[in-house]
């Protein structure tokens, strides 16, 4: 068998592929949010990691202060953080519409530093513990690996969320308005559609996706102020590979980059932090608009 030839038993390989898929699910949800925001607002949202972190902290906070468990937080945390996102769009980002991308990037980058800095000050850098919900404790032995129920749930939830988002943006009337709003906002406004409101909602939705990923991550990694800054650069690379603003591109690339990273961890662990950037460099040379991007 091929796997035996490479010197690795198939069990190890299957296990790593599955784990890669789980990590890829996180990349997919996070890069999907970025793609939505870039596609509709033309903003490179560097605050995405900080908002993901806010989602995880909202989860921990809801449990500690209001006694609301994981399942409640799964709905509430994205709504709360999404609302914060809408305020950011309405009062900060809107002032930058029509100027160079760079200004939006700088503003959101600054916001991320401020949010993360304040949370380090408030909660320390070590983070808070958060246990998975009791229904998803334990796991199942698949023969080639032990799969914790919670990780299985993460993949399921992430894939469903990605498909719902894709459906909303590509198949519904709202989605059509949003896409029209990017193409020609003035014309759409003339038809009586409230474009600024639409933009605010779109940013809020993208942010809520980040927070959703944050809720999913809370029981896996520690809930810590710097959890987003470690992940955000990888997620940006995923978006670039998929094509900035492409929704399907973000989903497919997110999942496949997770798998590629998982395989690298088997064959050359030290390179696992860089492999996605290597892929990005190759894609940028061969297809500058990304795998799913329009070459305009």
């Amino acid at each position, binding site marked *: 068998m091929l796997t035996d030839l490479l010197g690795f*038993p198939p*069990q*190890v390989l299957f*296990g*790593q592929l599955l*784990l*890669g898929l*789980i*990590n890829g699910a996180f990349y997919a949800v996070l890069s999907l949010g970025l793609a939505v925001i870039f596609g509709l607002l033309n903003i490179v949202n560097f605050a995405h990691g900080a908002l993901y972190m806010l989602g995880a902290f909202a989860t921990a906070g809801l449990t500690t202060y209001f006694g609301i468990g994981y399942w409640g937080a799964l709905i509430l945390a994205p709504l709360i953080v999404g609302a914060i996102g809408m305020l950011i769009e309405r009062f900060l980002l809107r002032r930058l519409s029509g100027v160079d991308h760079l200004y939006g990037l700088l503003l959101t980058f600054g916001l991320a530093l401020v949010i993360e*800095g304040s949370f*380090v000050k408030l909660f*320390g*850098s*070590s*983070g*808070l*513990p958060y*246990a*998975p919900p009791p229904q998803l404790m*334990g*796991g199942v032995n698949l023969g080639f*690996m*032990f799969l*914790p129920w*919670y*990780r299985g749930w993460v993949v399921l939830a992430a894939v469903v969320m990605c498909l719902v988002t894709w459906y909303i943006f590509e198949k519904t009337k709202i989605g059509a308005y949003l896409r029209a709003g990017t193409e020609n906002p003035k014309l759409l406004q003339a038809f009586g559609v409230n474009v600024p409101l639409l933009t605010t909602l779109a940013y809020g939705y993208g942010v809520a996706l980040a927070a959703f990923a944050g809720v999913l991550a809370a029981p*896996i*990694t*520690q809930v*810590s102020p*710097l*959890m987003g800054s*470690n*992940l955000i650069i990888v997620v940006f690379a995923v978006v670039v590979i998929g094509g900035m603003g492409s929704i399907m591109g973000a989903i497919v690339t997110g999942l496949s980059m997770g798998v590629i990273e*998982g395989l690298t*961890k*088997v064959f050359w*662990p*030290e390179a*696992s*932090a860089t492999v996605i950037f290597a892929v990005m460099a190759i894609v940028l040379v061969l297809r500058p608009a990304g795998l799913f991007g329009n070459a305009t």
Partner: protein
Amino acid sequence: MTLKKTLIAGVSAASLLCGAASAEISDGVVKIGLMSDMSGTYSDVAGEGAAVAAQMAIEEFGGTVAGAPIEIVTADHQNKADIAANKAREWADTGQVDAFAELVTTSVALAVFEVAKQQNKIALVSGSASSPLTNEACIPTGLHWTYNTRALAVGTGSAIVKEGGDSWYFLTADYAFGEALERDVSAVVEASGGTVLGSAKHPFPASDFSSFILQAQASGAKVIGLANAGADTVNAIKAANEFGVVAAGQKIAGLLVFMPNVKSIGQDVAQGLQMTVSFYWDMDDETRAWSQKFYEKTGKMPTGIQAGTYSSVLHYLKAIEATGTDDTDTVLAKMREMPVEDMFAKGGTLRTDGRMVHDMYLAEVKKPSESEGEWDLLKIVRTIPGEEAYGPLSESTCPTK
């Protein structure tokens, strides 16, 4: 001017200069430059808390030593060696800084060592753990205070081998510290009759440990040694718990764990975890009194790094008080001559390779039912004598020892 006259003038000028240097405090102020990770992953275990601890040492002197005021300046090195080197150079060149303190993260300590060596300044290292700092990378003025990777290996490593954990697999942070820790623990494991089956090097920092845990599971080793620190250790332990590593019979050995890490893992998951510590707040009346004062200032109990920073600054100031000068060589000689005696170390000695030898402790995380308060997290299982923890001076490969 004749040759004789020139010589006499030169000699008298030189003697004047020497006299000035040894009898006085340079620039009329004793200035300590404390550099730490103030915002990143190590800011909880070192950071602002280390600055507070150093300040507490200064307060014990009433703010003056040998008639001169004591000042402290702080900087955030962001765990980056280049930032640390530039700051250290600036402090030494134009900031009248006499000694560097804290210096968490090995790469930072190594960078500051370069500057300290060139400028002949004392470097009081507390937070960095790598044993090379007093071996091949040592400098004459570099003092390694709180702990090192060898002591961690002797403490946790040998305790686990004794309990039957004789085959090891390492998850190692891919930088100088992780490598030093893996090397030191491997030596202890093999010397105690155990075997090392392999290791996986993970990027620093890594957010997901599941695949490394899977490799460690596949290795069949009895013990998975975590040669990393901070958030990496926390994430690895959480992943191991999730993937049923302990339930399946393998043991996790956290080789460098701090109290804030235990809190973020959660006591129910961390209970029973063994760790080697240089200090614990609840050891005797002195440590409790000092830690209470620290708690009132910061809202947290001190870590070993923070308590060690206090001890190193205090000892440095004691030497200045005793000699009446802040001249590096004089102070250094005095620091070596006096035993280190404070709430952190009892009868500690400072060796010529820079190692401060003091007792270490093997601790175990209490069960939630055993804890009486938020910070009642550890029980001390064993005191490791300094000589055993750090080895004899003859083992040190420091060329200037």
